[in-house]
């Protein structure tokens, strides 16, 4: 293990903080849950880094993230559902036209509320693949299921979404 192969937790925070935040945001549609998850995950990463064995860092990190997320869900189970995020939470990149902004918000709200209707396993697989950008192998490692299961979940998730979205999108 060298200093180059094991990042510091600050490095992890800066490199992955935004991904972790978006992972939770898309799974819950809720900025508070997303913020909680970032804090909890970084705490666990900080504790866990000293025992990290070089291997698939992404798999390791996202397994921690996902477990932190599920533990958080279990703790908060009785909390009432929060409203969907407002449009002004969206960060839309470099100055698109007002029309583009509006249609983009409408579409992303559409996709977001459809995501929230997916069964958890499908939603998780789709978010890890399409929002976080992990490979099937990394998702399998993070979620502790065979790659074939990952492939089937991603497809079934997208297929369900397809049925919920308003076409043409």
């Amino acid at each position, binding site marked *: 293990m060298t*200093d180059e192969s094991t990042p510091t937790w600050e490095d992890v925070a800066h490199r992955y903080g*935004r991904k*972790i935040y*978006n992972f939770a945001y898309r799974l819950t549609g809720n*900025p508070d849950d997303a913020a909680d998850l970032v804090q909890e995950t*970084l705490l666990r990463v900080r504790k866990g880094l000293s025992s990290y064995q070089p291997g698939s860092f992404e798999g390791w990190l996202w397994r921690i993230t996902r477990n932190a997320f599920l533990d958080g869900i279990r703790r908060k189970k009785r909390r009432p559902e929060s409203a969907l995020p407002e449009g002004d939470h969206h960060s839309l990149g470099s100055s698109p036209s007002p029309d583009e902004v509006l249609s983009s918000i409408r579409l992303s709200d559409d996709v977001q509320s459809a995501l929230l209707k997916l069964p958890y396993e499908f939603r998780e697989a789709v978010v890890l693949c*399409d929002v976080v950008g992990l490979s*099937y192998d990394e998702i399998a490692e993070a979620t502790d299921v065979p790659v074939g299961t990952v492939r089937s979940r991603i*497809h079934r998730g*997208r297929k369900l979404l397809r049925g919920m979205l308003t076409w043409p999108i």
Partner: protein
Amino acid sequence: MADLIFDPEEHGELFSAYLDGQLTPSEVAIVCELLDGSEEAIEEFRYLRSTRRALRLLPEFEVPAALLPDGHLGDRLSAYLDGELVSLEHRRVTKHLVDCADCRAELQELDRARIAVRSLPGVETTMTGEIPATPVPRRRRRIIAGAIGASAAAALLVGLAVGGGDEPVFVLDDLNARHVARASAEPGFAFLPSTIEVAAP
């Protein structure tokens, strides 16, 4: 090859995985054959592609800055003064120092503090009782430093720097070269911060 009949239940999954670039070459061949053979397959493929694209085009939220460490150098400053950073991190730290007045000021204070500490008679033996025979391993030292917090270590060091004297002109390259030279010329020099950190509560 026998003609494949497109079955959404059976083959849809191949389309999804194809879009993700996760198929074996022989599976890719099946996808191509299905797309050649049926309008229904092409339509299914297009729907899946658009759905996937809509997901991937979801705007990314900025993580609130308050959730992340502030990005300053913290306990890396001491290691920097010791000339102990590996070259990659050394470059990163130097780059940050060029841009960040806060960290430059902290580095300067740490530097003055350590000069003051080093000028105390016998300090290297009184802090821990003896000069360590071998350096504390890098890994452990970082954990100790992280555990007590950079600010605690800095406060301890600065606390010893009574009567700091005139404001020196701060030249980064200068300081850098001076400390690398000193760390290599005086073997005991590099051990000092770790022994102070270990002695802290």
